[in-house]
């Protein structure tokens, strides 16, 4: 009883701090989402799904201030031709953004889309609501209810360049809630890039509908501000022969919880979710993934690698649920950590739940240190200890990075990882 009362008071305190954006086509969805949050209550430490990650700073009434992080690195993805959409502390910045018109796609701002956008109305909060079962994700429902900005991306063809969402963090107390909705029509293909710390506290939700035969690529690099906190959700629904590939790089950040909820609803669909994270010291990173196979012959892969040092913490909760009729499912899940010292820790909870009989699913989770024999071998060939350790660390991360199909993006991510490792050598 005490738990329930505490949950209600935490939830009330947070909700009391927010106002529901009124009017427009999303109003009904927002009200429904608010009802969902109120019914579920915000997460608490005692919740099974939050066993390894403390939710209090994500649910409290204001953001814990986060210092801005000065660095002289060139912006990631900066070299490539892309359509830029910029948010500053969670607010769209039209000056910094490109013109939003691009062949094969229509892009609208959530905050400005007052007129009815049919396709978005049919999706906004819908995948999120569906993703509340069987495990509640109250922060996502809160997002649907209170998101103040975001983009609605309708992909009708094959746009010539990636859509690049950049999130700047300029205020030490910013508390941003963004919600994006993406729909790919049958056969369409798009790459969405995301980067930046966004805010002191960032709650972001992305709903992605990938129609039959469509292909969605997603590569994100979460910002390097040490004190930032983020709770993000991706909800995706995949049609027949569609492809969904998402990769996330996380370097630094005092708290990150990335949830990814995917439903394979059409036969022969493919979903790959991967992440590489590197953390030093006061770093807590949680990947929580839930993939449901609900069609025949689908493939899913989860590849998560974490490099942790100086007391950093990594968490992985990953589930593959194969429903009764999802025969010929090919499911793979691997989560591994490389602990560069004894103070760091990796907490993993891999789960398989299978109701079909003709499936091939495998999962594995390991925690290890640098291979001393390999390190000596490299050093005996003249490679100094620092670079040799970096080389082995990048090799450890490679399986995750290789999930990125585009070679330029892959190289860029590898360069960032190499630079981070070089800066963080002992």
């Amino acid at each position, binding site marked *: 009883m005490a738990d329930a009362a505490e949950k209600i008071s935490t939830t009330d305190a947070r909700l009391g701090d927010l106002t529901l954006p009124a009017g427009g086509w999303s109003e009904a969805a927002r009200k429904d989402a608010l009802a969902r949050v109120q019914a579920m209550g915000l997460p608490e430490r005692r919740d099974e799904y939050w066993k390894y990650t403390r939710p209090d700073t994500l649910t409290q009434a204001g953001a814990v201030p986060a210092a801005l992080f000065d660095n002289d690195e060139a912006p990631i993805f900066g070299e490539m031709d892309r359509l830029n959409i910029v948010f500053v502390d969670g607010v769209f910045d039209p000056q910094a953004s490109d013109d939003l018109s691009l062949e094969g796609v229509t892009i609208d701002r959530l905050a400005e889309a007052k007129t009815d956008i049919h396709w978005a109305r049919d999706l906004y909060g819908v995948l999120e609501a569906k993703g509340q079962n069987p495990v509640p994700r109250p922060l996502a429902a809160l997002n649907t209810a209170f998101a103040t900005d975001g983009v609605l991306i309708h992909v009708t063809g094959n746009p010539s360049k990636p859509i690049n969402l950049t999130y700047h963090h300029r205020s030490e107390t910013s508390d941003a809630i963004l919600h994006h909705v993406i729909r790919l029509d049958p056969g369409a293909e798009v790459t969405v890039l995301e980067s930046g710390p966004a805010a002191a506290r960032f709650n972001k939700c992305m709903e992605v509908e990938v129609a039959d035969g469509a292909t969605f690529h997603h590569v994100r690099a979460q910002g390097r501000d040490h004190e930032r906190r983020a709770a993000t959700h991706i909800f995706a629904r995949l049609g027949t022969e569609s492809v969904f590939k998402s990769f996330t790089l996380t370097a630094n950040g005092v708290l990150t919880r990335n949830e990814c909820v995917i439903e394979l609803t059409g036969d022969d669909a493919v979903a790959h979710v991967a992440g590489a994270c590197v953390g030093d010291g006061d770093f807590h990173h949680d990947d929580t993934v839930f993939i449901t196979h609900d069609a025949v012959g689908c493939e899913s892969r989860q590849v998560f690698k974490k490099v942790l040092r100086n007391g950093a913490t990594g968490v992985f909760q990953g589930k593959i649920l194969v429903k009764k009729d999802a025969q010929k499912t090919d499911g793979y899940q691997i989560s591994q950590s490389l602990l560069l010292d004894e103070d760091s820790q990796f907490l993993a909870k891999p789960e398989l739940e299978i109701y079909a009989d003709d499936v091939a699913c495998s999962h594995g989770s390991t925690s290890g240190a640098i291979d001393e024999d*390999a390190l*000596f071998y490299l050093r*005996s*060939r003249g*490679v*100094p200890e620092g670079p040799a350790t970096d080389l082995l660390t990048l*090799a450890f991360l490679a399986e995750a990075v290789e999930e990125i199909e585009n070679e330029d993006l892959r190289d860029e991510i590898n360069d960032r990882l190499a630079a981070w490792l070089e800066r963080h050598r002992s």
Partner: protein
Amino acid sequence: MLSIKNLHVKLEEEDKQILKGVDLEIEAGKVHAIMGPNGSGKSTLSYVLSGKDGYEVTDGTAMLEGADVLEMEPEERAAAGLFLAFQYPVEIPGVGNMTFLRTAVNAQRKARGEEEMSAADFLKAVRARAKELKIDADMLKRPVNVGFSGGEKKRNEILQMAMLEPRMCILDETDSGLDVDAMKLVAEGVNALRSEGRGFLVITHYQRLLDHIKPDVVHIMADGKIVKSGGPELALEVENNGYGDILAEVA
């Protein structure tokens, strides 16, 4: 070239003495061979010289061209010209063989204050040497030693040696696990590198490698010490009579 005096080594973790006073003098241009029963300390000697963790030098010295190698980090020893062809080459998943070789070559050049090798020059040099060792393009692309056969691993060691051009080469049982053809390739690789300025220490169990790589001096090691040294005929004696007679004679 390499001068080892009264070298005593024990395990760091255990109270176990492995080398009990090794003396060895290897001149530039010469090939020395060490033979000896299993467990006599041959690999330990090679590891201690190249700087592997886990061993403690309790007495003695090892100087490479006047520099105290025992004081150096493994990478410094490599840059100073020491090379060990491992008895058991290590597999490194995720690190491409080419990347590894190029990183190593340029790291050594950098440490010596030399200019790095350009990608084009490097590629040319690797291809030429790989061809001689019958190492195909695929092996160069694969992760270091991963999925290599025993023979491929040993040839890969010789390729590294050829690319790094060390002054003092130590080969630890490079012949073990090789068929006759592979052994010839390896021996040819080694012979191609023989030169005035380079010393070799060839550790082997068998005479047969020494048919191909003709040693100048042969040493017998037993229980952590060099118990007998002589010319190539000593290897033949071992081949014919085993270690029994020699060990009995020095006991």
